[in-house]
């Protein structure tokens, strides 16, 4: 079961870019993706900043090559998954055992919201085409069909850790010799449902979020999709390009503290990071960069920071929250940040944590604020923690 799984392709779409190159360019410019709401039809427009993908539903559908009336979740997913698959350039793809493991939290909710407006007035009304495909799994199915993947597909939904779990479930399908190639990651489109949900919890910042800053007041919601292409060693050897890296460690632990809040000492986060290190056979000192979950809520950053202090202290690797650029893309965040982690290894990058000014009073460390290039980066730890105490950490390692 210790056979390695390699990452040979990446694809991403977020508020800072519609593909990998645009996302990297935005990091270079230090340009965040948040702003006033322009796409989503909500009363919170102009009040709550979000990180929208800067394309209308029609433009996105056009980019994806899908009909214009589909859920934004599907089009975002297809754009990023297709980029990852093309990037991998696997010559005999159709002859291999292939899988698609995707994640999301609210499926086709953007369309269901339209349906319910009419349905609530009259239960015989509401366009059924806006609701029949609501299920999370339908998002995955549409994209798998477009990519020609049929040997195995499934969908995971563990709140904000969803796509990190999808990635390592995909790796395990390869390790168990069920599949040769898996595209894995996740997607979420902005929806009134989630915007209002997080708003009721009073964890949305009316300003741009300030992860790991002592003055942080909450998160900004984002949207997007991120996927990696995982392959077995046998497949990796047949490719023209060397793999980006290996997925060397992973762990899913539960905080078992509260349905939405993290425990003060970050028990789940600690166990996930520690478990991933054990799986990878690494020590904390081997980690060269931590891509933080770093939502910018007082609770998350305090719990995550405390867990890092317990596990890494007193020697802390550089770390940052790329959510300061992309917002919190919920079910997509683990996939999006996996792509950033892989690129960190490939290009020797450490991303800046935007808008950081004041070190958190309870922590002896602060995040990196400069975009650092040409860094010697061998091992990257990526954290994704969610509601329900679902905590997952992944470790990517240079090969």
């Amino acid at each position: 079961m210790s056979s390695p799984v390699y990452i040979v392709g990446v694809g991403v779409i977020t508020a800072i870019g519609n593909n990998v190159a645009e996302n990297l360019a935005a990091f270079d410019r230090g340009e965040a993706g948040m702003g006033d709401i322009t796409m989503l039809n909500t009363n919170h427009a102009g009040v709550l900043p979000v990180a929208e993908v800067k394309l209308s539903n029609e433009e996105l559908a056009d980019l994806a090559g899908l009909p214009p009336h589909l859920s934004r979740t599907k089009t975002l997913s297809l754009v990023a998954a297709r980029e990852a698959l093309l990037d991998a350039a696997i010559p005999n793809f159709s002859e291999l055992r292939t899988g698609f493991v995707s994640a999301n939290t609210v499926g086709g909710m953007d369309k269901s919201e339209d349906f319910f407006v009419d349905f609530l007035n009259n239960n015989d009304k509401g366009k059924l085409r806006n609701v029949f495909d609501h299920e999370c799994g339908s998002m995955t199915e549409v994209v798998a069909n477009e990519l020609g993947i049929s040997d195995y597909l499934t969908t995971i939904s563990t709140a904000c850790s969803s796509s990190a779990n999808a990635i390592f479930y995909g790796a395990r399908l390869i390790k168990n010799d069920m599949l040769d190639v898996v595209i894995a990651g996740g997607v979420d489109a902005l929806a009134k449902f989630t915007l209002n949900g997080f708003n009721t919890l009073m964890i949305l910042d009316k300003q741009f979020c300030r992860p790991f800053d002592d003055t942080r007041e909450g998160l900004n919601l984002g949207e997007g999709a991120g996927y990696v292409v995982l392959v077995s060693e046998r497949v990796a050897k047949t490719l023209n390009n060397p793999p980006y890296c290996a997925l060397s460690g992973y762990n899913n632990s539960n905080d078992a503290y509260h349905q939405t809040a993290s425990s003060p000492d970050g028990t789940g986060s600690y166990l996930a990071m520690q478990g991933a290190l054990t799986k990878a056979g690494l020590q904390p000192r081997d980690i060269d960069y931590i891509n933080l979950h770093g939502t910018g809520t007082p609770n998350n950053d305090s719990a995550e920071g405390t867990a890092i202090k317990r596990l890494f202290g007193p020697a802390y690797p550089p770390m940052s929250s790329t959510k300061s650029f992309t917002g919190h893309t919920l079910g997509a965040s683990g996939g999006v940040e996996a792509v950033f982690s892989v690129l960190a290894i490939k290009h020797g990058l450490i991303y800046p944590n935007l808008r950081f000014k004041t070190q958190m009073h309870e922590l002896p460390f602060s995040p990196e604020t400069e975009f650092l290039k040409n860094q010697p980066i061998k091992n990257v730890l990526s954290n994704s923690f969610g509601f329900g105490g679902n905590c997952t950490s992944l470790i990517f390692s240079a090969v």
Partner: protein
Amino acid sequence: MKLYIKSAAAISAQNTFSKGPFLADLTEYTGTRLNTIEPDYKEFLDPKLARRMSRVIKMGVAAAMQCLRDAEVSNPGAIITGTALGCQEDTITFLERIIELEEQMLPPTAFIQSTHNTVAAQIALMLKCHNYNSTFVHKGISFESALLDAVMLLKEGDANDVLVGGIEEMTDTAFKILTRLGLYKRWPISNLDLFKAKSKGTLGGEGAAFFVLTDKPSDDNMAELVATRTHFNAAGKLDIESKIKTLLTDFSLTVEDIDLVITGKNGDIKNDAVYEILDQSLFADTSKAYFKHLSGEYATSVSFGLWLASNIIKKQTVPVVVADGEISNTSPKKILLYNHYQNTYHSLTLLSAC
């Protein structure tokens, strides 16, 4: 490595949760929808907590707790659930309030409990279980995906005593929408006559079934879980007969070795035609059973099928009510559970006496 089903607990439209006789005391429903017979939750949940919980959370938590008690497991190595629509009731409640209250002053509880992983999370919270915890949400193979995850965890040696469950609740709203989509029969019938009707549509259902899986042999285990596989019918090209033969061959079996095939027939003529092709060919001489007249149809109803299969093997008896034709061997040792969901996802689960 051999894997076993150590315990199974189901809350369903039948009296499956109490320790009564095995599907002898049947509940008849007339209509197009079967609701679960819910237990007294006091035994499993603090009533103060339970009041805030939707039915799917209560059903899921209670079935999980009973399953763990039966297996004498206090801290499972993993908690994995499968559900296509998750916490429907809370999702719909929150969605309706957004519209009615025009996004202002919304209460948070429904949103908090709306995420698909709520049941798995609540089980972890109640047990203070920090182990692996995941939720699969892939339409008609949500439960099978969870089951495969459990199998892999055991084979990888990363967990023992894995708790895995299939859950789904039917709400009035979903029932109305699914009826408009044509899933159910157009007129009321008795569920016990479901397979006599020969018409379009099925009966809506819901339920929660949990299992503890282990790699440790024991006389107390219910059945050996030999294999579980899913097949996606891309572009209608799936040859399920050859997939079944492959599965049997992989375990050095022939169709003659299968004592009972439990199918996912649901009374919808189009749905059942897929099974009837095999009734005439591969399974022409095999004893057959069905279960969806007892549970109703829902995306994770195959978990009720697995509860049935595990109990048939453990108790070595086939309840009369599930017989689809003549049962030649009433104490089956090998059972194949074959289900498909809208002919898009097919799943095969093979069980054997320990």
